[in-house]
């Protein structure tokens, strides 16, 4: 349509500023991470060599290029520490995502079944904790799970345990923290697909003699799979790189990859190895990221 085409040109001009911003503050930094991951650690400021210095001319730049090597990546592969922490991240993310589906699905399902006038309220109630600070929500759990905390006192009062259980600095505490923090990310996409679903399909299944249980597995669940997919990706990807929750709630004997990166950077001051860890983490996340990108584009742009 011609009016649309007239509109498109100024709209493209509008994109110039954010385009340049993202190129400078998103793309270029990635180039730097890649470059430094191929550099050597040095006791200097900045703590790596070679440093590209354009003022020294082309020859120096070429020499600097030749100094780049894959040594840091060889280190990642040869040292168990790194492989184990990648594996731990994947296991923690997969386990948490599974728990999130198990908890999130019934909640989203209940929301979708509410009378229409209550659904908006229920959705707001799920979103509001998402607005309150993430750090504060994790801290709230430290309050509850500490040695003389509320959780232990309830367990003691109910005579479920005879003495206080250590919850903090355990994987259980970490899983509670992760599930708590990411629950809205799982519920919302699930609810979005479940609420859109045509109830006549379920009525038809029932009329045809399916029990509610059977109708759920044959009709509802398959139709909700796009929502499950979106929820899984929305939780899995950021959990793999999670730092704050495992650092505050889990023990320190096995680290997730985000913690390893943090340690290399802040404690060991080894910028090249930290960069290599980041690049490897990114490679790990490329398949789910591509999938997420497709889903997201289909959802946002498919509504024309």
């Amino acid at each position, binding site marked *: 349509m011609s009016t649309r085409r007239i509109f498109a040109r100024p709209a493209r001009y509008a994109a110039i500023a954010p385009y340049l911003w993202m190129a400078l503050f998103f793309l270029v930094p990635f180039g730097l991470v890649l470059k430094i991951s191929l550099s050597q650690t040095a006791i200097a400021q900045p703590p790596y060599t070679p440093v590209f210095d354009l003022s020294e001319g082309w020859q120096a730049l070429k020499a600097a290029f030749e100094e780049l090597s894959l040594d840091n990546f060889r280190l990642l592969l040869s040292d168990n520490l790194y492989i184990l922490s990648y594996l731990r991240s994947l296991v923690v993310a997969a386990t948490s995502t599974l728990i999130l589906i198990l908890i999130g699905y019934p909640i989203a399902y209940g929301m979708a079944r509410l009378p229409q006038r209550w659904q908006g309220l229920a959705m707001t109630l799920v979103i509001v904790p998402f607005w309150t600070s993430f*750090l504060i929500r994790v801290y709230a759990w430290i309050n509850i799970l500490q040695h003389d905390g509320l959780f232990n006192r309830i367990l003691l009062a109910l005579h479920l345990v005879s003495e206080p259980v250590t919850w903090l600095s355990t994987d259980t505490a970490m899983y509670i923290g992760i599930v708590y923090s990411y629950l809205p990310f799982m519920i919302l996409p699930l609810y979005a697909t479940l609420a859109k679903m045509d109830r006549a399909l379920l009525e038809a299944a029932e009329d045809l003699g399916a029990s509610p249980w059977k109708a759920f597995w044959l009709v509802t669940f398959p139709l909700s799979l796009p929502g499950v997919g979106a929820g899984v990706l929305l939780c899995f990807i950021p959990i793999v790189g999670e730092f704050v929750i495992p650092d505050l709630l889990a023990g320190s004997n096995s680290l997730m990859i985000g913690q390893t990166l943090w340690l290399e950077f802040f404690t060991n001051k080894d910028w090249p190895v930290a960069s290599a860890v980041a690049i490897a983490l990114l490679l790990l996340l490329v398949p789910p990221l591509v999938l997420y990108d497709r889903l997201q584009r289909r959802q946002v742009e498919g509504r024309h």
Partner: protein
Amino acid sequence: MAHTVNRLSRFNMTALALGLAFLYLPIVILVIYSFNASRLVNVWGGWSLRWYVEFFNDRAMLEAAWMSLRVAAVSATLATLLGTLAAIGLARGERFAGRALFSGMLYSPLVMPEVISGLSLLLLFVALNAERGFWTVTIAHTTLTMCFVTVVVQSRLTSLDRSLEEAAMDLGCNPVKAFLMVTLPLIIPAIVAGWMLAFTLSLDDVVIASFTTGPGSATLPIRIYSEVRLGVKPEINAISTLVIALIAVLIVAASFASKLSSSQGESAVPL
């Protein structure tokens, strides 16, 4: 015929009630204990405001809070401006060179692990020899949060009826005028929501701020974080309660503002 599928079963209700309790109880407990008079965090010593007084006498904490508020306000404003422009480009720009790269750059930070975003931005600031502090954190937060603004505003733009813009242009408006007169008033609720989201995300961030800030300019979350690592402290409960109250006030204000500006009664809370 009465269909059982249309009834809200007891199981549904229980799941919903337990789910909401799980989401809210920890926060409620945190808020209640912020008014606890006892120094021991889990012994109730009666109602008191002593931890709030403690916070308002804690110079370092107050400075961090002030720094965070400034970073959040400036970065949210920049992010709203850039994010809205990006959303217009994506929603109305049709095809253009580098569009896939553009939307890729805008969508990936939404799920990118914060440690990577933080590290990469710090390396840039070091390479540019920029002095680290207020502006580096603000730029880092703008970069992250503008992507959220883009998503919120873009989804509003794509769901709008474009025949309104076209009618305005048929009536003689140029595209810019049509946008300002017709489209912009309709997307204001989404823009307000985007600003709010950017503000709260910035106020919340520990990881990216830790990478990109310099010595002597810690943000509130960085300070809270270092205190929390040492254990529970009643003062942190009080600060947390204040942050929650601030965000609650902002959300209520924003939803009022968007109700006033939009006849459709669009909520300020997106997603």
